[in-house]
């Protein structure tokens, strides 16, 4: 489904991602862990096409479509979704309007008919309830005055409504208490249908107790330095990243 090959990303004249290769099949959940500054968020921004995140080398395709060649909104229409680490507040634009325009835009781009208002309202209410936000949040400005946890749940609500084929969740667990964490995890799990895939970026093993990943990758200094199954996350939790970096250095020295 998603194929990233030897990706290099430059931000403000700094190389952040330096040769990342990753392949994700339909239905898989991949966790990406790694120390601060490793390039985890940069990966999400580069794939979604944020200005200033320049791909200097490599490729990324989603179901055979070259993502890097598309406008931001066309990548979304192709089925890519990024749950932001810091969702943006847009006062004056109601959450409801924002969601309706988003869903309509994507449906149009995919050649589908737009939903009737009542149909959309039904879906929006259901999604809102699913992430345990009061319905009043649909009428409020996008993320305006939401708490950190409410913003994260609002991201999951958008994901539920937009039905992307590949979701990148950028620290969707950060700043959440245990109840909110469960709600977010359940929201994500409800979307796992064996076809849709997920990249879960996180610092902590905790989230992975609730979202069982198929693979865990460690990203450090712009590269995946180790991949494994869920047990790798437990090892990291127990030993930290320092262990890995020395491991990696030793390996490099051995191969040199």
């Amino acid at each position, binding site marked *: 489904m998603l194929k990233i090959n030897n990706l290099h990303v430059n931000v403000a004249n700094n190389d952040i991602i330096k040769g990342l290769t990753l392949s994700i099949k339909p239905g898989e959940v991949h966790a990406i862990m790694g120390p601060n500054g490793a390039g985890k968020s940069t990966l999400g921004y580069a794939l*979604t*096409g*944020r*200005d200033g995140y320049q791909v200097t080398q490599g490729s990324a395709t989603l179901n055979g479509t070259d993502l890097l060649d598309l*406008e*931001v*909104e066309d*990548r*979304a*229409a192709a089925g890519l*979704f*990024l749950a*932001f680490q810091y*969702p*943006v507040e*847009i*006062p*004056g*634009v109601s959450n409801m*309007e*924002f969601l309706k*325009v*988003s869903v309509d*835009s*994507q449906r149009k*781009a995919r050649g589908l008919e737009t939903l009737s208002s009542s149909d959309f309202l039904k879906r929006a209410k259901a999604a809102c309830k699913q992430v345990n936000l009061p319905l009043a949040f649909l009428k409020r*400005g996008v993320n305006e005055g939401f708490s950190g946890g409410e913003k994260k749940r609002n991201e999951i609500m*958008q994901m539920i409504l*937009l039905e992307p084929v590949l979701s990148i969740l950028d620290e969707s667990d950060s700043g959440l208490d245990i109840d909110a964490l469960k709600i977010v995890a359940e929201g994500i799990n409800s979307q796992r249908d064996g076809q849709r895939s997920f990249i879960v970026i996180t610092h902590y093993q905790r989230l992975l107790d609730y979202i069982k990943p198929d693979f865990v990758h460690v990203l450090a200094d712009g590269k995946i330095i180790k991949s494994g199954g869920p047990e790798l996350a437990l090892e990291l939790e127990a030993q930290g990243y320092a262990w890995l970096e020395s491991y990696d250095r030793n390996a490099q020295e051995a191969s040199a």
Partner: protein
Amino acid sequence: MSNWLAETIHQAEKIDDWLSPKRAQSLSLLKSTAWPTRQTEAWKYTPINVIERAVFKSANDPQIQAEQNSCSKIPNLQAIDLIFVDGIFDRSASTQLLPEGLTISSLSEGADLSWALSSFNQTKPKHHFFGLINDTLATQGCIIDVAEDQCIDQPIRIAQSFSLDSQSHTRILVRLGKRAKVTVIEQLQGDQLSFNTSFAEYQIADHAYLEHYRLAMQCEQAISVGGCHFHLGTSSQLNSNLIGFGSQLSRVDMDIIHTGEHSNAKANVIYLLDGKEVFDLHSAIEHTVANGVSEQNIRCIVADRANAIFNGRIHIHRNAQKILAAMNNRNLLLSDNAQINTKPELEIYADDVRCAHSATIAEIDDEAMFYLQSRGVNRGDAQVLLSFGFINELVDQMNNAAIAQWLRPILRQRFANMEIR
């Protein structure tokens, strides 16, 4: 002197009523005041020469087709309506039955109200040229009195519409007794060539609360010059909302005078201008005593060859300490030929105050743009959504849900018709 002014003075000299002593003062001032030109600072960007060029008739003139009031109804407002057509009070179309504690009289009935004469011209600045015109010519209008401790739940809507070639001058006097509470809506509509001046003076006594709306929605050929002037007592509150659609000339002066401590005034202003429209707001906040709070948010969207003028003055008097004053003016230009003339004027004579002002030509926020695009919304649609959100944020802040709900689609439609070029 222009013919128009000569005729105005001639008309004014014939008026004889309870306001005559006040009119005489203003008339003598008017005679010694020069017709404003582009060199007159307060009228620098305002094309008032259009008034001289046109010929208007008063509503009594048989050639004026006095129609019914054409102001849009505001659904679910359930207001006490005061209806004016070309400046003439239409009693039969207005609400007759008033709640307890509320007295409404037409301006001509003011002779019976001792407070009305002493309140007249106490809040409006003396030297406003068209204010003087209004002083001398306004024989129609209304006087609203809310008794002490009365909370009037029903909003009062003063609806004025204007037909072709009409000239009208109306005056509104409002008094809120101590701890009184009321909502007053001044609605002005009409897009044909006409000329009106409409000035309103509000006295808000101690601990009283006024929720105010001026819907200055005259468009196209209409010429409108007016003002709303507020006098705030101790611990009183004003929450004002002004909507400005431009026309060939639309000018509003807003004065907020804090005369009692702990008074709090907030004014939100939306301009939405297209074509060759002009809208000019001159605001002045006077903090004459300590411990006052004032906040102004002025947001303009200006398209095509329209011209938005905002002159915002904040005057903090000597010894008026501990004042919090904020003035934010944000503008969005949709065309290279549109104009925004914004000028903050701060005069601060006290040393322990916080006074912040900003005036920006807004760009669309990059982060918000990326957020919308990442959800599949194309740049053009995102721009419309964000630009409308920019003014809708102030609509969201309106306390009267019926007005907000009525206004939103109207603003959206007006905005949708504007072109980005």
